[in-house]
């Protein structure tokens, strides 16, 4: 061993020491339904949901998982270029998504398929993005659900600016009050944009909820590569409340989000919610989690499944009959089949669509490129080569 390589080894050892005083990242959280399906009351979060509401959430959870499973299969069959699975995060998304009022605005990442479902977006439009047919084909204004943002954390600033617009429109307080929810993950909390969004939201007291799904992994990097303190505690440093919720508990996610949205609508400013959950699948279909995490970790989280606990609760308390569960399962099959068929038969856009919607009106330079390319394509048609 040379002197140089010895020095490098020592340096590497020093750098790889764990951070001192690492607190327990699991810790306490708001929970209203245990993994075993036991209802727990929380003094700050009384629940206003009927049995029908909870059955509806169960249906949501099952259907979005079915859509997700279908999409993964379609990617494996070559029908999608890639897919970002929400497996394991269904409760965080359905709970927070069902807490939204129709007037509230959502700024998602690229994994918010469950929230999109709650906003009435046809899942086929989500698949269109991952198939490469569009960059996001739904109407963000109609659904009050912005387009998926792929650069990590960028949308948190858009959400904050939108919330500042709500303030300027006088839509804080009163019956017409609105709020914004910004979704992001644990990795995103390291992004400058997310931290800038916290600063802006705080100093302008913007009506926004920052909903962080801490799924423990930013592709291959575990949470300790992002933070030495529990993420929700960061909010305090920015000057607004932060809390942690069991992200696999759909009832708790609903309750904490509803309360935070209401506070925002009433002019009390931002709240940071850390939904403590787990990404059960790969980051995307291109990823291989066996390279960086242990199967035993997955086993622990399987026992905290977001769907099973709702099923157990509904069944045991007699709020749902076996026919209900069978009906939901049948519907999940139908939805999967419909999505699969729609994806496989989805046409590609015409080639000249490349040139559309770059500007409000096409520039002369763009117009020329379009005409030249159209003529080039036509030349093949005339030669009979296509």
């Amino acid at each position, binding site marked *: 061993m040379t002197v140089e390589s010895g020095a490098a080894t020592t340096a590497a050892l020093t750098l790889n020491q764990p951070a001192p005083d690492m607190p327990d990242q699991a810790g306490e959280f708001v929970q209203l339904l245990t993994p075993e399906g036991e209802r727990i009351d929380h003094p700050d979060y009384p629940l206003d949901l009927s049995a029908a509401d909870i059955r509806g959430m169960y249906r949501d959870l099952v259907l979005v998982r079915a859509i997700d499973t279908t999409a993964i299969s379609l990617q494996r069959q070559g029908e999608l270029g890639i897919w970002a699975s929400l497996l394991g995060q269904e409760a965080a998304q359905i709970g927070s998504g069902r807490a939204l009022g129709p007037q509230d605005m959502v700024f998602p990442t690229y994994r918010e398929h469950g929230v999109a479902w709650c906003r009435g977006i046809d899942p086929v439009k989500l698949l269109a993005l991952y198939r490469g047919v569009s960059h*996001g084909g739904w109407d963000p204004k109609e659904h009050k659900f912005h387009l998926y943002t792929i*650069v990590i954390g960028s949308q948190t*600033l*858009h959400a*904050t600016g*939108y919330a500042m617009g709500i303030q300027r429109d006088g839509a804080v307080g009163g019956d017409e009050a609105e709020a914004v929810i910004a979704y992001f993950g644990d990795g995103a909390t390291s992004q*400058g944009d997310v931290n800038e969004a916290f600063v802006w939201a705080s100093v302008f007291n913007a009506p926004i909820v920052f909903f962080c799904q801490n799924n423990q992994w930013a592709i291959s990097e575990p949470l300790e590569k992002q933070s030495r303190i529990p993420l929700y505690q960061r909010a305090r440093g920015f000057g607004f409340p932060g809390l942690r919720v069991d992200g696999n508990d759909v009832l708790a996610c609903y309750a904490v989000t509803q309360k935070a949205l209401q506070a925002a609508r009433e002019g009390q400013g931002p709240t940071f919610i850390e939904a403590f959950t787990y990404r059960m699948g790969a980051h995307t279909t291109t990823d291989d989690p066996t390279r960086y995490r242990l199967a035993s970790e997955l086993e622990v989280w399987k026992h905290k499944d977001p769907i099973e606990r709702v099923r157990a609760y509904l069944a045991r308390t007699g709020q749902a009959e076996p026919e209900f569960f069978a009906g939901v399962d049948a519907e999940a099959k139908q939805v999967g089949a419909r999505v699969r068929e729609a994806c496989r038969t989805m046409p590609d856009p015409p080639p000249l669509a490349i040139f559309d*919607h770059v500007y*409000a009106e096409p520039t002369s330079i763009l117009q020329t490129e379009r005409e030249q390319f159209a003529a080039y394509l036509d030349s093949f048609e005339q030669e009979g080569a296509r």
Partner: protein
Amino acid sequence: MTTLTLSKALNAGLRKALENDPKVLIMGEDVGKLGGVFRVTDGLQKDFGEARVIDTPLAESGIVGTAIGLALRGYRPVCEIQFDGFVYPAANQIISQLAKMRYRSRGQLSLPVTIRIPCGGGIGAVEHHSESPEAIFAHTAGLRVVACGDAADAFAMIQQSISSDDPVIFFEPKRRYWDKGEVDTANGVAAALPLDRAKVALEGTDVTLLTYGPLVRTCLESALAARGDGRSIEVVDLRSLSPLDMDAICASVRKTGRCVVAHEAPVYAGLGAEIAARVTEQCFYQLEAPVLRVGGFATPYPPSRLEDYYLPDLDRILDAVDRTFGY
């Protein structure tokens, strides 16, 4: 007509925009009480309030990112980036978000955001305060990129940019802020030249000199000096850097047969390269000489005691003009 400095003309244009449309907002660092470090927004917060003229936290990505959100809500934000070299922290928001949102949404979303950037050198500043990053933004589809060169254009173009439903990167030649010009502030901008059009700043017959922003004045001075040598230079102020007004550019080059492009930004992979390629393609049979470029060197911006060597001045521009007659 009123005589105004370029910065006062911008101020008057911003004031008009704020008056004419309640959705127009101004946001940036120090734009409120201070009126901006160059005083371009002087007095606007006093008259239009803190909700419309917003002193933001000190983070450029935050300024542009929240402006995007405000635009999605129906507002027309005008962001000030304090100096050219400070725009890069906002590059992700400008290039990946602002420029692409219309395309991403298949035309369902418009982001009418104007980003004002004082640009260029010549004021003896420290590093990062003298740059010309226009080519980066001209290379980004979805953005309009413009540069004003005189007070009258400053007044009209800032209003046209704010009215545009496309995002506009608006370059202001900082060393020309104090240059005076005649501005028609009484009339609206309806009669003004459209934002995407170049203008002939000085007619000539022998060679076309294409320029924009801070070098418009330098090129006009060069043309006047060349008259003494019996050489007639036509100066075209491009005004719009993306899209380029190729009709106006080619009309001038076909007339003169010679073309020089002058900008402060480095020549290498700069706007001049795109212009030279297009002029060569479209005016090949009328050209008497290759298109020549004069501009900054392929170096970072130097310490300010050297900037007079770095920036194209009258002599370097006329040297390039002379060289086009050597073919």
